[in-house]
């Protein structure tokens, strides 16, 4: 069964000044148990799509089903399957951490005794139990993000939707959040993630959709998408050289007297690079990717899309 089915979803925002077509017919399927990334630049339609799925935004037309429940006919059943972690902090800043999560469980029909047990479980898992009696406004940005994840888990949803959950979170906490999300996914919870950290999507997600200007550009699995990237840039750290080496047949840059950046097409591989450097007496000490691969691909797809848009 699909955790999420979206068919020809459209949303037009109308005001006195202007009309904005935020979604122009989005069609998307997310399988049960998937870890799915929804990527796109700012204003692409990610948050509008999530808003419609979670009933915060009224759609203009189209169909949305959550675990088979149509949001038009079975809205409450559809909602009860979803846990939402929005982009912006949307809890009462004057309430305590415990009040926020326990009340949220209540809205889903979870009795108070069970809600307190779950609050302890999830707040401990996400390292906020010590802060349970603190007012939300006193928490750091990272703690507030974790609070929203714990809140979304209180009714133990089958589908967890996170809209940029790690924005503004330091690396250590981000990694612990990744670990937590991976554990949830391993327990069978379907996860949909939007993020600006493409490394995050590449590391966590199996399937991906790229949305831009209200339309889905790519919808495939991560492996297939990354295979489209046929040139990778490597940074080679070498022993210091007096004479800059030359790599025939490759685009390359000498950064300093012990660093070379080289673009390597997939069909050529790295062997010719090493052979040429060895012939010129340059010894490679270490090597790494210049940029996140998905990021490169994403930037390229966006540029192609922009060029296509301009020519049409």
């Amino acid at each position, binding site marked *: 069964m699909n955790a999420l089915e979206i068919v020809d979803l459209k949303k037009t*925002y109308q005001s006195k000044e202007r009309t904005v077509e935020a979604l122009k017919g989005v069609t998307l399927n997310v399988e049960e148990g998937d870890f799915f990334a929804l990527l796109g630049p700012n204003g692409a339609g990610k948050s509008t799509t999530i*808003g419609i799925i*979670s*009933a*915060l*935004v*009224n759609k203009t037309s189209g169909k949305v089903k959550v675990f088979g429940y149509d949001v038009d006919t079975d*809205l*409450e*059943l559809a*909602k*009860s399957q*979803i846990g*939402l972690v*929005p982009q*912006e902090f*949307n*809890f*009462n*800043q*004057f*309430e305590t951490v415990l*009040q926020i999560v*326990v*009340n*949220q*469980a*209540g*809205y*889903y*029909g*979870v*009795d*108070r005794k069970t809600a307190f047990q779950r609050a302890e479980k999830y707040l401990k898992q996400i390292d906020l139990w010590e802060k349970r009696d603190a007012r939300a406004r006193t928490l750091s940005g990272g703690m507030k993000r974790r609070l929203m994840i714990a*809140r979304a888990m209180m*009714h133990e949803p089958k589908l967890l939707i996170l809209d940029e959950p790690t924005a503004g979170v330091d690396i250590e906490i981000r990694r612990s959040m990744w670990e937590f999300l991976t554990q949830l996914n391993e327990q069978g919870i379907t996860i949909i993630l939007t993020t600006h950290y493409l490394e995050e999507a590449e590391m966590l997600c199996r399937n991906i959709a790229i949305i831009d200007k209200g339309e889905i550009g790519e919808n495939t699995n991560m492996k297939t998408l990354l295979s489209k990237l046929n040139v990778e840039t490597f940074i080679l750290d070498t022993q210091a050289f007096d004479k800059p080496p030359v790599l025939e047949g490759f685009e390359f840059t000498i950064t300093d007297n012990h660093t070379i950046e080289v673009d390597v097409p997939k069909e050529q591989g790295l062997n010719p690079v090493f052979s040429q450097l060895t012939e010129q007496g340059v010894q490679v000490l270490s090597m790494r990717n210049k940029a996140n691969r998905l990021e490169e691909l994403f930037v390229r797809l966006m540029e192609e899309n922009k060029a296509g848009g301009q020519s049409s």
Partner: protein
Amino acid sequence: MMNYSIALKSVLIKECTRFLRIWVQTLVPPAITMTLYFVIFGSLIGSRIGEMGGFDYMAFIVPGLIMMSVITNSYSNVASSFFSAKFQRNIEELLVAPVPNYIIVLGYVGGGMLRGLLVGLIVTLVAMLFVDIQIHNVFVLIITVLMTAMVFSLAGLINAVFANTFDDISIIPTFVLTPLTYLGGVFYSLSLLPEFWQGVSQLNPIVYMVNAFRYGFLGVSDVDLTFAFAMISAFVVGFFSLAMYLINKGIGIRS
């Protein structure tokens, strides 16, 4: 099937926790204001007025002053709480949950009613320091105070739905609610007014609430009790229907 009573209980707990947390702003001011009313209008000036409607002036104004506190506190509780939930966006906690809209309305309105009733109780206790409270019909008393608290909680909710700034939730109380309350027969019997103004006063819904409540205490009313209950009921039904329509449409809360 979802258990909506748990959801309703959760909203009520959230609402009560809110106004009890800020008790210095919500519960103390009405007690102080009403003490001043009792001292100035009741003891100092009231003693020179003599009787009103066949009762000692202090005894006459007590029901109206209790009702005034219930009205303003029920209204302002829901207006500020719901607007704040919109402003901080924590209303989304309820919108994403499988909670029917009538539970959202009943939850916020219930919170407003509870604050109104609690303040009403506090003001009654304060009044007992100044006058011997007598109760003529406890049933009329309870029904009137519950329905009035509900009407003004609903009105506060409707105000908050349309409000875009904090100013928008103070305009109606200042320019509509306060004049209507003061002209609603809290401090005087309508029979003191010229005939024309007695007729105009019949258009003021607060007249019916204050008089029905006064009947519960003293057994006297300037208006027919059946008609008063019909009017209050009409406001309950009308405001509830309007509030449901606005929330169902998502006005001010869904884009």
